[in-house]
């Protein structure tokens, strides 16, 4: 079981986390891996904290990742990276979107958004900051930030030889395919 790789996606409902993990899983299945993926539905999706978990290898048992077990965490939002850091291996990697989404207690002024999260992450583990939201906006649609981050993940995990164009085409609406392929390549470049 040692060979199983664990990837944790974290962020906020609506950021396209489920789509990113779908594209990833699709390519992994195509490449012949056993894959398990777990996602969250319902109440928790309404602006709440959302995670999906992807595990792949020769044979995978549990569909969820335990504490200190994720090889890579892809955080779509800064504060979410800190919330889920205990799931990541101390020797693991955090890929974090340089993007903040204030939660309800912050919006109503009860709390303030914590400062210096990225520095605090860097003190704990290997952390790569990606300007995914900004770069996706430059490409013309901030929603493509999820695929920018996926590109960064693929580059860092050395999975570039999988069939990514096919995986993107199979999972996104036709009119967004070009945008997402560009976003994916850009994500890879950003962390090369």
């Amino acid at each position, binding site marked *: *079981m040692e060979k199983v790789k664990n990837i944790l996606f974290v962020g*906020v*409902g609506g950021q396209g986390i489920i789509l990113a993990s779908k594209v990833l*899983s*699709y390519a992994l*299945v195509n490449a012949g891996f*056993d*894959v*398990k*993926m*777990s*996602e*969250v*539905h*319902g*109440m*928790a*999706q*309404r*602006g*709440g*904290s959302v995670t999906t978990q992807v595990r792949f290898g020769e044979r*995978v*048992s*549990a*569909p*969820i990742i*335990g*504490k*200190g*077990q994720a090889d890579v965490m892809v955080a779509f939002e800064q*504060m*979410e990276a*800190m*919330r889920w*850091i*205990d*799931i*990541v291996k*101390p020797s693991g990697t955090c890929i974090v979107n340089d993007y903040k989404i*204030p*939660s*309800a*207690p*912050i*919006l*109503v*002024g*009860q*709390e303030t*958004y*914590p400062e*210096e*999260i990225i520095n*605090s992450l860097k003190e*704990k*583990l290997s952390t790569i900051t990606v300007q995914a939201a900004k770069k996706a906006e430059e490409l013309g649609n*901030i929603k493509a930030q999820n695929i920018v981050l996926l590109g960064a993940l693929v580059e860092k995990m050395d999975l570039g030889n999988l069939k990514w164009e096919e995986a993107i085409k199979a999972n996104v609406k036709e009119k967004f395919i070009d945008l997402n392929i560009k976003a994916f390549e850009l994500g890879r470049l950003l962390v090369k």
Partner: protein
Amino acid sequence: MKRLMTGNEAIARGAFEAGVTLASAYPGTPSTEILENIAQYKDSIYSEWAPNEKVALEVAIGGSIAGARTLAAMKHVGLNVAADPFFTYAYTGVNGGFVLVTADDPGMHSSQNEQDNRYYAKFAKVPMLEPSNSQEAKEFVKEAYKISEEFDVPMLLRVTTRICHSKSLVEFADREEVEMKPYVKNGAKYIASPANSKVLHVKLEEKLKKLEEYSNKTSLNYEIWNNKKIGVITSGVSFNYAEEVFGEDVSYLKLGMTYPLPMAKIKEFANKVEILYIVEELEPYIETEVRAVGIKCFGKDKISNIGELNPDIIRKGFLNEESEALEVSSEKIVNRPPTLCAGCPHRGFFYELSKRKNVYVSGDIGCYTLGAAPPLSTTDSVICMGASVSAGHGFAKACKANDRDMKVFSVIGDSTFFHSGITGLVDLVYNGGHTTTVVLDNRITGMTGHQDNPGTGYTLMGDVAPEIDIEKLVKAIGIKDVDVINPLNLEETRKVIEKHENLDKASVIITKWPCALKRFTEKDHERFNLKRAQCFVDQEKCRKCKMCLKVGCPAISMDKDKGAHIDLAMCVGCDVCLQVCPFDAIQKVKA
């Protein structure tokens, strides 16, 4: 090729392959996608959304009596609603094969409790299968139909959130076309009158004895032999977790059929190992039975019966080991509770209702449960589907009987009103109730991800349906004071709330505006002005009074230097904040 599927998709596929021709359900997390996926096979399977779980189960029972293979699906608490026919159908037995899927929610990701529905199998005397992954989910559906027809019993397929919403690989097979069985009139079997049921109960006990024999020999329950020092008995998703933790260091008795339990097989397994662990999520369902026959084991003394199970809990409980993990810097985290979406039509209504003093707001299950969250903090109680109306009525009657002056508003969504709000309203009219029932009609079943319902004009299979008119319905029951309002118009909303606050009789307010996330139909566009300009803050006029924050919209934030800001990626132009701003600082973006 194998496909990556959720458990719910796999159950739908299993129903298709098993030759099912009828399926019914009421949406509920984590079960919703089962019927949504069955609807894809509409050339082969008739499927429908029922207004509640009891109706769904009865529809499937009727189809089974007719001779077809049928399926009903619901979340765990849905089976409480449907329990009455469930228990009785165990007595009568089936004609066509029958499967009820119960989707439990350990950890309460999206539920009001975490009841362990395996007890329903034992309680109702209905045989139960528990798959551990998507492939098994599909295969077990097919197995369940075979057992159902061979033993003349309804079957329970028990799954949990992590089975429903986890994806794993599934191999497809072809659909087996199953001929509908002939229907023969047989009152002694299908009429559950006392005289018949006395006989049926005896027969059921005989069937259960044979089913226990079956459970002892079926390959659904199998052993995996490794080291014999420790043996683990487990089922469902817990099997994966146990395997993750113990690997090949222990032997397993993996149970796919957990009612009736294979007691002979369990005894045999226990005899061959030195130490026995029972690894199960939630309650000690298997453990209690194992202990009852005098077998020593470890189980709930090592792992809690509270919350969702995971490999970490098993590792800590049985091995006293913990993985090395990084520490979360709690000062760097702020809670992120779910909120009403930007543009949610419920916001305007809750904002106005939250300003009323000395009112009790009896809430219900749906997105609008979030009306309880700050800053709106409107709702006083939420119990179960439909309870807003009836519990609100009870609250008001108790107040009146004890001379306490308090106005009650019962707040319920459109789909929940059809589910079980109507009966409560009938009670109110019949017994001279004096609460105001508010139907928040957002033209869809929201929280579960936009399913149609009897008010939306479409069926699960995509056909046009009559829309049940809530206004006419409540008037027909006998409610005289009925107001239909646009909840995005705060002045209109405020006036109507004030009017009803002063009524001392049963009355109804219907707020009508489609969910902001809904895929709007042509009719929605005809009826509502949905092409709305977004709002922005003129920061020169903003005095940072924070009034706009009181509506709790996730699109609005406050910068202590610049003032309020509206995120145009989220704003849909509902105008609630615009009406709240005392300085006209919020304006419409010009097209």
